[in-house]
C-alpha cells in the first residue's frame, strides 16, 4: 500500500457504459491496491462516471491516473479543478 496522507485527492473518470467497463475499472482499483477512501459511481448505458477519493500523495495519485487512463474502455481521467 502506498504511503497515506490523511488528505484525500479527488479524481474523476469517464468510461464506457455498462457493467463490464465498471467491473474492469473497479478490479483495477483493487488489483493495484489503490487507497480508495471514497467512491461514487453514476452508471449509465452509454457512459459511466466515477469519482474517487484517494488517500495518497499527489504524485502517487497522478501515477494511478495514468494507469486508469490506459484502460481500454476508460475515456478520460482528470482531477476536478485542474
Amino acid at each position, binding site marked *: 500500500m502506498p504511503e497515506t496522507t490523511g488528505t484525500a485527492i479527488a479524481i474523476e473518470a469517464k468510461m464506457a457504459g455498462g457493467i463490464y467497463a465498471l467491473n474492469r475499472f473497479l*478490479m483495477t482499483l483493487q488489483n493495484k491496491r489503490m487507497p480508495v477512501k471514497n467512491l461514487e459511481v453514476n452508471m449509465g448505458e452509454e457512459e459511466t462516471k466515477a469519482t474517487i477519493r484517494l488517500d495518497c500523495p499527489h504524485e502517487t495519485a497522478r501515477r494511478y491516473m495514468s494507469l486508469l487512463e490506459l484502460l481500454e474502455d476508460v475515456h478520460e481521467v482528470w482531477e476536478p479543478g485542474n
Partner: protein
Amino acid sequence: MENTAHKADFDAFDHTPAIEYKPRIGSEAMCEALLDEGIEHLFGYPGGAIMPFYDALPDYPLKHVLTRHEQAAAHAADGYARATGEVGVCIATSGPGATNLVTGLATAMMDSVPMVAITGQVGRPAMGMDSFQETNVMGMALPFTKHSFLVEDPDELYPTIRRAFEIARSGRPGPVLVDVPKDVQFAACNDNGYRRLKEAVPPIASPGLEAAALLLKKAKKPIILAGHGVTLAGAELELVRLAEKTGTPVVTTLLGLSAISNDHPLYIGWPGMHGQASVNRAIDKCDLLFAVGMRFDDRITGNASKFAPNAKVIHIDIDPSELGKVVKPTVGITADAKAAMRGVLGHLDSVEDNCASWRAEIKKSQESEKMHEETARPEYGPIRIMDAIKEIAGEEVRLVTDVGQHQMWSAQFFKFTKKNSHITSGGLGTMGFALPAAMGVALAYPDEPVWVVAGDGGIQMNIQELATIRDMGLNIKVAILNNGYLGMVRQWQQFFHNRRYSSTPMTGPDYEIFAAAYGLAGKTIHPGGDIEEAVKWANETEGFAIVDFHIDSEANVYPMIPSGMSVSEMIEEHA
C-alpha cells in the same frame, strides 16, 4: 438475413457442414479475423463451447497445434510470441478449459507478452445459470489481462478479435482474452467493420531526452540497466550504440538477458537476488542509473529504499504508470525503448569518456568472482552443463528455462550471444513454463536449436506435452538438472527455516523410460558422467531428446540477497 445458427442447439451442435451457414457465421468470422491478423499457428484444446470454431477451422489455412493441456497451449503461444515478437494465439473451451488458461495469461501479463486467448463460453441463454462448464472467465481474467472481452453481439465478433490483437501488441504488450458464447459462434454476422483504437503510445517529451543525455555526459559512474522492454522494442542496436558512445557499463534484468551479447566488453552481468555480487555492488556505488524498459521488480531492487542509493535515475518505460512506482526517477520518460534511446543518442554528439576509472574499478571487483567461476567450471555440475550446451548447440541456440535454481544457474553461466535467445518466466515465475513455451519457439524456428533447461520439479508440471512434441516432430532438447528436490524452496528452507525440508524432497520418473513410452529418446547422466558426450548425443538426435542430469542434491545458488534486503546483506558462497 435469417439467422440459421440460432436454430442449432447451442449445447449439442449437430455438425451440419459449415456450408449450411454461409454466407458467414461467427466461427468463420473468428477464423477470418485471425487470418487477417497474419496468424499461422494456434495452440489449443477443443471442447463443447468452442466446437463451432473448431468446426470452421479446417476450412482455413490456420495450423492448429493440439496441446495436451490448456495451460500448455497458453505457454506455447507465449513462447511463440516471445521468440517472434508477434502475437501468440491460444484457444480453449469454457469452464475448466478457460480456467486452465489463467496461469498462462498471468505469466504473459507479468512479462508483457502479446497474446490473444479465445475461449468458448456457454450459449447466451445459458449464461448466469450455473450451466455445465460455465465460468465467468472474462471476470476471472481481469487482473491478468490487458483487456478482456465477452462478445455477445455476433456482428461485433470480427472487429473485437481484431481489436484484441491491436490491444495485445500496442504500447506495453500483454495478453487479451476474447470470450465467445457458443451461440454467437453459430450466429450469422453482418459486420466486418474494424475500428482502430485510440493511440496508446504518447509522443516522447524531448526535454526528458535532453536531460537524460546531459546526465549521461556528466556521470562518472554510470550504469545502463536494460530490461525486457529493450527486446520487445527491438532496441538491441540502440542499447549497444548508447553504451559504446558513452562508455557506460551495461547490466540487464533477467528478462533483459541477451539484449546485449555477453561477449560485449561493456556487458558486466545482471543484478538482483541471484545476480553477480560485483554487479549489485556496482549499482550500489553508481552515480547514474539509466534504466530502460524495466520496472524495478523486487527481485532486482531488494529493499527499494536502499537500491542505488548514490544514483540519479533515468527511467524510460512505455508504461507511464511504471514511472515512480518503485523508484522515483530524476528523469522519467514515457517511451518505447528504441525511440527513447535514439532520442538520447541524438543529444550526444560529443561525449568525453569520463568512465575509464569506473570500468576499471568494476573489472577489478569481478576478478575474484571470475576466478571462483573458473575453478568450478571443470567440475560436474551446472556450469559445465551450460558450457556444453552453448559449445555444442552453437551460436544459434535459444535457451528456454523453467523456474528455480536451474533458471538462475542458466542466467549466471550460460553465455548469451544471440539476441532474444533467452526465454523464461520472469515476473510470475511459472514452474512448468519451459517445455510448452519451447514448443512455441521450436515451431517458430524449426531449423534452429532450442534447448530447455528445467528442474525435476517444473518438468513434471507439463510433461504431458511430450505427446504434442512427438506429434509435431519438434526439434527440442531438454536438460533436466535433477537434484531430487524442489531445489530453490529447499535452499530457502536451508537458509531461513533451519534446514526443515518440508515437502521439498521429490521423486520423478525414470525420464529415459518415460521418454521411450512416448517414442522419444532419453538419457540419464549420473555425477561424474560425461556431460559433453550426453549433450552431443542429444544435439545429434533427430527431433526431441531429453537428458536427465543428476546433480548435487544440496547445491545452492550464490550469491543471494534475501527477499526485501539490500546488497549489504548479500549471502555469498565464499563468505
